[in-house]
């Protein structure tokens, strides 16, 4: 069940939402579309789930064309749209049952597939979906998308607005589903989640910046990155920004991620410089390049 996207473009009025995008998702792969809101992720999902026509280009899902064979695609994929699309006034159980019925199956028939996830929300099965917390809604939505045993899953920002704990659990679930042979295309604005995908496409303003494995993609950052911290982080940022040899500097958690233009960069020299600017407790140490660094570099 592979997905193939060839030169897809889509324009709404004067906004180009998707601009000549091409990529392939292999069978059984967990593929991530990583980018901020407005990057074109949702439009791309809708084109692939046969909900929108592309202006240009072709796309196939499991070798079915998204336009000509849309019915075959609709029978074989699971789709979880951006907002958790559940019936708020139906209970957990009724929602699941409804989606099972319209896909011509029953909960029992495919219970194996959702069991891991469903047991977590089963204690609340008589509760209306509208009364569930964000994390539980997300799990229910996933169960509903899985109940007909789709060969491919399209998950559009499944973790947006969900707390870190639920996000982590959610990705663990996706990993387990992948082992059951389901091809997955997931979009997310959280860069830290990218590391959990087999391959990722960084996307911004309707264009793909880079496609690679999470391990390889960081190599697209041309410089060595250093963690720098000091007693006054805001001043540190302002000073580094003005520093002549600064290639890039961004706040990253408790450190600044700093890259220097020079190849023979010397940390001692920078430490002295910062000290001269009145900063104390200066720490400078090399660090790993993250996907977020790479994204910012490519999006510049």
């Amino acid at each position: 069940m592979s997905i193939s996207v060839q030169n897809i473009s889509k324009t709404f009025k004067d906004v180009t939402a998707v601009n000549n995008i091409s990529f392939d998702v292999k069978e059984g792969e967990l593929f991530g579309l990583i980018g901020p809101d407005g990057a074109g992720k949702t439009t791309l999902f809708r084109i692939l789930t046969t909900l929108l026509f592309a202006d240009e280009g072709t796309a196939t899902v499991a070798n079915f064309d998204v336009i000509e064979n849309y019915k075959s695609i609709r029978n074989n994929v699971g789709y979880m749209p951006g907002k958790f699309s559940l019936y708020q006034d139906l209970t957990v159980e009724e929602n699941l049952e409804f989606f099972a019925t319209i896909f011509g199956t029953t909960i029992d028939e495919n219970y194996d597939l959702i069991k891991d996830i469903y047991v977590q929300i089963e204690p609340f099965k008589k509760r209306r979906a509208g009364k569930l917390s964000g994390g539980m809604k997300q799990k229910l939505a996933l169960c509903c998308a899985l109940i007909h045993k789709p060969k491919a899953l399209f998950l559009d920002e499944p973790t947006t607005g969900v707390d870190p704990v639920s996000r982590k659990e959610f990705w663990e679930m996706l990993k387990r589903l992948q082992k059951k042979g389901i091809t997955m295309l997931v979009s997310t604005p959280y860069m830290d989640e990218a590391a959990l995908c087999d391959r990722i496409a960084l996307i911004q303003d309707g264009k793909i910046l880079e496609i690679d494995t999470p391990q390889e993609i960081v190599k697209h950052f041309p410089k060595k990155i250093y963690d720098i911290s000091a007693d006054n982080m805001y001043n540190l940022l302002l000073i580094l920004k003005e520093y002549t040899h600064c290639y890039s500097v961004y706040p990253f958690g408790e450190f600044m991620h700093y890259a220097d233009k020079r190849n023979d960069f010397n940390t001692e020299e920078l430490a002295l410089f910062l000290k001269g600017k009145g900063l104390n407790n200066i720490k400078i140490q090399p660090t790993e390049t993250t996907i977020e660094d790479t994204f910012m570099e490519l999006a510049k």
Partner: protein
Amino acid sequence: MTTKNMKRFKGFIKKEFYHIFRDKRSLFILFGMPIAQIMLFGFAITNEINNVDIAVLDHSKDVTTQEIINKIASSKYFSIKQLIKNEAEIEAVFKKGKVKAVLIFEKDFSKNLTKENNATIQIITDATDPNTANTISNYTNSILQKYQQEINKNIKTPYQIIPKTRMVYNPELKSVFMFVPGVMTIILMLVSAMMTSISITREKELGTMEILLVSPLKPFQVIVGKVIPYVFLSIINAIIIVLLSIFIFNMPVQGSLLLLGVESILFIITALSLGILISTISATQQTAMMISLMGLMLPTILLSGFIFPIASMPLPLQIISNIIPAKWFVIILKGIMLKGVGLSFIWKETMILVVMSLFFISLSIKKYKIRLE
């Protein structure tokens, strides 16, 4: 349909009923409204008039005119406020707002009636309130007609008082009967068109429509599944309204109940197809509600001839009223309920509704998107 398809379909309808029965607001609209409306129209906003002040201009002042004036004065509907002497005074009494109507007897009224067998009485009503004006003229006509019947009892060539009354179908002057068809039309329109359009757009707003589209459910099934619960509920509503009218207002249904049922279902289908059409062009529940209210409910109330007589409307509105399905249904209902006519008398109106339904259904099918754009 295959059994699998049938099962899907049943599941869908079940879900729709869950939505309806769990939403207190829609339950209220569904079952509270018909009862409230029929009671409201039946008891409060009736067209009945009591002791309306009128003026009389009697050009002949003979026995007959005196008798008629006495008849009118003794009825509980009118009280004669003023006797005026010439036409010039008419405008003055209207302007002062003293009277709602003026009756003018022509010269030699009695002589004309006995010699020529007809005499003219002119009824001028204050049309700033067209509703009351209409009622006044109807009531007056009905009194005149009664009087005429009395004097004609022993006469071979009957005397005729002109104008003839048009109040032949509601001789008891009970206006609630006139309202039942109107209320029924409004309720069916509300339940069928507005509720359906809201329930379809709700799915769009929630995002569930996306999932339904990306499922093996056919768009046709989604629509029909949405519509069926409302067909069912609308029929129940129509039955409630008819029962209320019969048992609370003692309104006799003159015509065939079967025909009434079939015509009601036809109108429900017209309204539903309008509801579906609205849902295809609106993206949010709010828009659907606005379009339903402004585009359907207002014309239904104002232009169907149920409150304001179409005949007294300006010509452009009279023409527009022809495209309001409710107008035709009101005519059909009045025909069956009040006049007791059969299909042969209302086939034209029925055909118009059939054509309208077919038109709206084909338009919505054409407009319904199997995709999001």
